[in-house]
């Protein structure tokens, strides 16, 4: 385990990906070390979500290399990437509205073969993190509030006992108080379990305060990298993502 700390858990090198003729990623390099929270910030259409989905195999990389734990996963099919215990909470929550909370969580556990005991441990972990979900266990996903649905989406991703958790816009459409709860939960996960997290956010202020390191993405390229605190101090970041957003 000590040797693993030297090599990044996830390394993306020169990644290019496109939707048809429109190139969304133009050679992206990022690294995520074990136990880190890494934030990826940028404006709409910068390619943040594409990067996350591309790591997951859809859209496929046109060039470049994605390594997870030292293994090349560039061409691996999407459903097998999940089996390597990379979990994704997609943008817009996307829980299963007609299925119960319990079933939604079970869907997360189904992806990786896990024993009954592991499932129980996983459930306990999710309920400890989001007690609200335990109260609503038999309720249909669609009857939950937005915040609860986000908790469910993260809980569902956690059920596969991921080594890397990727969250796409977890604060999207949530009241500030609820968003803070979600960010607190992510911090707890990272501190207690040492979970490695990649978080894609428009809410740069929150995300950078939470993250150890951050990347700024503009038009399919990484333009800035640094620790969360450093990036928060950068005048161009403040201008582009923080003050402008607040006044506007």
């Amino acid at each position: 385990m000590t040797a693993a700390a030297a090599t990044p858990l996830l390394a993306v090198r020169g990644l290019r990906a496109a939707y048809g003729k429109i190139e969304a990623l133009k050679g992206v390099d990022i690294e995520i070390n074990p136990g880190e929270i890494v934030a990826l910030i940028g404006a709409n259409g910068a390619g943040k979500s594409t990067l996350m989905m591309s790591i997951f195999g859809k859209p496929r990389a046109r060039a470049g290399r994605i390594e997870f734990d030292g293994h090349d996963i560039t061409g691996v099919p999407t459903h097998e990437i999940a089996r390597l215990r990379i979990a994704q909470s997609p943008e817009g929550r996307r829980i299963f509205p007609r299925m119960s909370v319990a079933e939604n969580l079970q869907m997360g556990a189904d992806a990786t073969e896990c024993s009954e005991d592991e499932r129980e441990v996983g459930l306990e972990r999710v309920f400890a993190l989001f007690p609200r979900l335990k109260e609503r266990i038999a309720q249909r996903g669609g009857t939950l509030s937005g915040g609860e649905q986000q908790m469910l989406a993260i809980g569902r991703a956690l059920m596969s006992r991921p080594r890397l958790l990727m969250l796409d816009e977890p604060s999207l459409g949530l009241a500030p108080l609820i968003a803070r709860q979600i960010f607190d939960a992510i911090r707890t996960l990272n501190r207690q379990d040492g979970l490695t997290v990649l978080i894609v956010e428009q809410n740069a202020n929150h995300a950078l305060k939470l993250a150890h390191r951050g990347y700024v993405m503009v038009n399919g390229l990484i333009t800035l990298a640094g620790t969360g605190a450093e990036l928060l101090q950068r005048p161009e970041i403040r201008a582009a993502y923080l003050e402008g957003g607040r006044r506007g």
Partner: protein
Amino acid sequence: MSATSARPHASQPSDSAFILKKALISAAVALVLFSLMIGIRTEAGPEGNLIYWTRFGDLAAIVATVFGGSIIVELLRQWWGPVDKERIVPKPVQSAMSFAGRWLAPALLGFTVLVPVIFYDQRYILDLSILVLTYVMLGWGLNVVVGLAGLLDLGYVAFYAVGAYSYALLATNFDLSFWVCLPLAGILAALWGVMLGFPVLRLRGDYLAIVTLAFGEIIRLVIINWQSLTGGPNGVSGIPRPTVFGIPLDNSDDGLAAKLGIEFSPTHRLVFLFYLILAMALITNWVTIRLRRLPIGRAWEALREDEVACRALGINTTTTKLTAFATGAMFGGFAGAFFATRQGFISPESFTFQESALVLAIVVLGGMGSQLGVALAALAMIGGFELFRGFDQYRMLVFGIAMVLLMIWRPRGLIGHRAPTVFLERNQAISSDLVKEGHG
């Protein structure tokens, strides 16, 4: 449940006044309308003069019917009312209904098992129940594709046809018995299910529906035009009847009746067919219920809800869709083989789009994904259709109206709620009415 019992009687007084007022207005309108139409009858007399007489008794009866009917309709509207309205169902009615709901399925099954005993002498009813059970099985089969996996399949009849022709051709050309052909018919239909599945993997909703519709037609046209194999429009005749594991059900010395030492009767075969299709339908139901509790069944339902989320969770959407198509097609193939052996003769006319539409209507009316609902809908559609045979030209009209009304009052089908398959602590059903279609 909690929302319905929260304010059960709060708004009743004003409601009853409203209902009464509405009924009075309806009655007044009826009085005005019918006083001339029914109250006074005119006729030309023998010398061309006008004679008329009054029929106030009939008029009063009509107006009273409208008044009473209006109250009943209004009460029904309040109970079963629109999705987003609170219901004023009295507690005893509620508990009676939940009691009925719990015992409906076992009672229905018990009654079904006894049908050949009760109606032994009534060939018509036996025939009809065999038909209903065939559609129950088809409905349950299609339910896997449409109800669980959410893939709108308008060409389900293709698999029914593949199953029927597989059995008919294998049995007439190679002298194979029904019990050998049945699994073969299922396998062949499943194979065709996968073949349909591959090209439509990327399609959803409307586009998928169109392609499956075309697929159903292609199969039918191939059957019509491939004369050398299928006999074309003339169909296949002389399909062997099923045997009780090798013992034929006929009047010969080797027949079942002779072996058991009882007098031969043609009803024996009907009773056998009845229990055969009942067993096949119940196996379909059992397999579906089991599958729903397995990861693959959950994956089907998840696929219906959100395909992107499924991919994010590492579900292989390709195999999930293909297994749904194959499983549904396989049950369709079994039902087709049964159809062929029951009829003894099949032709392409039995496999038109109307059959697909009928089975789909059964699934949708029953409540997508609900096994009991599908069975009830099959009973109502097929049985009800026969019931209205006397009305002949009106029965399509009646059915159209019934369907529209059902979709207004029960937009999710007869049994719209979906029972969860994963239980952690307590089991508590959430009424479907609390969840709108799509994302909540």
